């Protein structure tokens, strides 16, 4: 899921950085509007740590190998702050694990960050409609992975890859991850909704 240095064209790399910087600025604005950022820091750190190690847990799907991403979970639990959280996680992964390149941190953040934001919006809308939180959380967890693989495939097509190969090596193997992350997100949301509902960004707004 991490694109290495030297694969993409400079235009795509520049696009990734610009969009990421804009989204990070936007997400801090959003967080300031929705309560104190200071209160969010412990939650933010814990979930960034989870994201940071998630890519070490991989599953063999011959002829390739896929790993957990957890962007749907971060989107649902952190809201817009998932974007800067994953940006930091990706920087650490690139520096310490050599997962992905340095120049591609921008576009890699875009590939996981935008689906996380979409998941968050979907989770909010779904909850407002009165659907069960764990169910909608699970769907959002899976949706984020699907969107990430589609984004990744589109980005790699700009680098000259063919769509059929992308479908075979990226989208289909990640179906396994989609199911696993749907279950993880549903369980975390079910647990938080029961034990500490105010940790979900959504409930705070509902309470207001």
């Amino acid at each position: 899921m991490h694109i290495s240095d030297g694969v993409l064209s400079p235009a795509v790399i520049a696009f990734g950085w610009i969009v990421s910087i804009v989204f990070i600025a936007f997400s801090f604005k959003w967080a300031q509007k929705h309560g104190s950022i200071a209160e969010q820091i412990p939650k933010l750190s814990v979930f960034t740590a989870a994201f940071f190690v998630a890519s070490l847990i991989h599953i063999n799907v011959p002829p390739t190998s896929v790993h957990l991403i957890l962007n749907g979970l971060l989107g649902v639990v952190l809201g817009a702050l998932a974007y800067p959280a994953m940006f930091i996680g990706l920087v650490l992964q690139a520096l310490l694990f050599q997962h992905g390149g340095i120049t591609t941190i921008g576009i890699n953040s875009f590939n996981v960050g935008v689906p996380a934001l979409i998941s968050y919006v979907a989770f909010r809308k779904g909850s407002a409609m009165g659907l069960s939180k764990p169910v909608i959380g699970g769907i959002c967890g899976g949706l984020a992975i699907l969107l990430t693989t589609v984004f990744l495939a589109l980005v790699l097509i700009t680098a000259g890859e063919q769509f059929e190969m992308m479908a075979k090596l990226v989208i289909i193997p990640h179906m396994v991850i989609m199911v696993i992350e749907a279950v993880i997100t549903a369980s975390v949301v079910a647990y938080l909704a029961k034990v500490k509902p105010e940790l979900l960004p959504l409930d705070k707004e509902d309470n207001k």
Partner: protein
Amino acid sequence: MRSTRLITIAILLILSISLMPAASAHRCYVEQVGADEIVVKAFYEGDSPMGLAEYQILNADSEEVLYEGETDEDGFLSFTPVEDVTQYTVVVDQFGHMGEATISATGGSAETAELPLFMRIFTGFGYLLGLAGIAMIYTAKKKQ
């Protein structure tokens, strides 16, 4: 404090995940495993093969492309050494995951020394803790 307990449990869970011996990453390795015909294996951390990945073999000195192709299902590729070329750069790319190694015609690829995986995980947690600390100091100052 419920939230402190929750966060402690979460940290412990993450730590226990990161200490699993089977934990392995998506870092790419490219390593020579044969000599006569040069056989190269491309794999991710944790030994899962980079099957059906595109590769390029270059002359390490002139950067001229000598061979191009796709690895087999088990991540292997092989090529016949070219006369007068002693160092080859092998680049393997699977949907943006790219591994690279320089190998010599006499066999073996250069390995670089680095910290063990669990040390790198703890380094990452250290950075996150530091960042959280800085962010807390910053937000506390703002409040005053």
